[in-house]
């Protein structure tokens, strides 16, 4: 006689596997609880197959207007997809571009003399006449670090690319948001 208390240790997964054609576990022959589980799973499989389904709520035939809309050019179809539930890309992209653009503008607006690092980072250290941020004093003594790119650019008389890049990203983000709005209005998406 099987120990009924041991059922908790029996492999329920193997019993479920047996429903789909897997090998019958030996416990089905020895443990009444396993046998009952097997029977219930078989019963439920039949019940799922036999279950009625709710009625369809509407006729799904295509109207002439819909059919002609579906035959549009590729770019119109692409526009039609933007902002729909299937479109999982345009919103996060727009948010990312806008966020990066705003962050870039903020960084540009911060005065150059302000320390940007966190408490754990080392303060800027003067080395060969240039400021190097985030380097430890120990490493300073041995490795001569290059001057920051911004300083090199300033020395060469080149403009800082950050403001332009930020405005570009911000514009792309805003354009994507606008495109979504236009697409949803054109396509009648809720």
């Amino acid at each position: 006689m099987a120990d009924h208390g041991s059922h908790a240790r029996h492999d329920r997964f193997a019993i479920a596997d047996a429903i789909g054609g897997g090998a019958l576990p030996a416990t089905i022959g020895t443990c009444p609880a396993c046998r009952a589980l097997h029977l219930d799973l078989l019963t439920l499989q039949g019940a799922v197959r036999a279950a009625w389904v709710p009625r369809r709520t509407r006729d799904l035939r295509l109207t002439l207007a819909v059919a002609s809309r579906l035959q549009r050019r590729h770019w119109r179809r692409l526009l039609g997809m933007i902002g729909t539930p299937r479109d999982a890309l345009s919103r996060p992209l727009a948010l990312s571009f806008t966020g990066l653009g705003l962050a870039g503008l903020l960084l540009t607006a911060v005065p150059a003399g302000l320390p940007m690092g966190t408490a754990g980072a080392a303060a800027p250290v003067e080395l060969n006449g240039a400021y190097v941020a985030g380097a430890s004093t120990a490493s300073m003594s041995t490795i001569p670090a290059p001057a920051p790119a911004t300083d090199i650019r300033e020395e060469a008389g080149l403009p800082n690319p950050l403001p332009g890049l930020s405005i570009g990203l911000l514009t792309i983000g805003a354009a994507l948001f606008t495109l979504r709005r236009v697409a949803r209005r054109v396509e009648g998406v809720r």
Partner: protein
Amino acid sequence: MEDLRSTTVPDDPVQRRDLILIERARSGDLDAFNDLVILYQDSLFALVVRMVPDRDQASDAVQEAFFSAYRNLTSFRGGSVKSWLNRICVNAAMDTQRARKRRPVQPYPELEDEAWQPRAGDEVDPERIAVQAERSRAIAAAMSQITDDQRTAIVLYDVEGYDYSEIAEMTGVSLGTVKSRIHRGRLALRDLMSDRMELFRG
């Protein structure tokens, strides 16, 4: 345009009929496509409403699938039109499931009595109809409580008769994941129905 009849076996009258309709639809005959819609909208809705247990969302998903089929008529490469439409519908249903996850709405609604659709050939004995309606309601309620992935795998395996590898290909996961989803889903269903199993005996 490719002649589908020359590349497929036209022995099955249903397939032959479907291929003729597809070919006419590809040449611009909307009525031919709508004949396909009439032929398959009920079975496709039955498939999708099991995966997405909300009648309106299921209708939307099947409608979207027919739109997709119409747009991609040229990509149909012969074989069974029903299988082709089934696959498009499964994709549309999974899209709907993903959209529900992103924008959760209200939980699956309770269905009214008149919403149920007895299958063709089911008995007319009022008592048996009442029992079957009660069973269907209980199964639908339990199915709506397991995960979307488990429900999809169980419906495709138990109701639609696809094998594990076909389901793996359709849902884009490994064979082991499909088996695991089905087994876990079955066990979850049994746990949910443990106090209602008497309804299904006898």
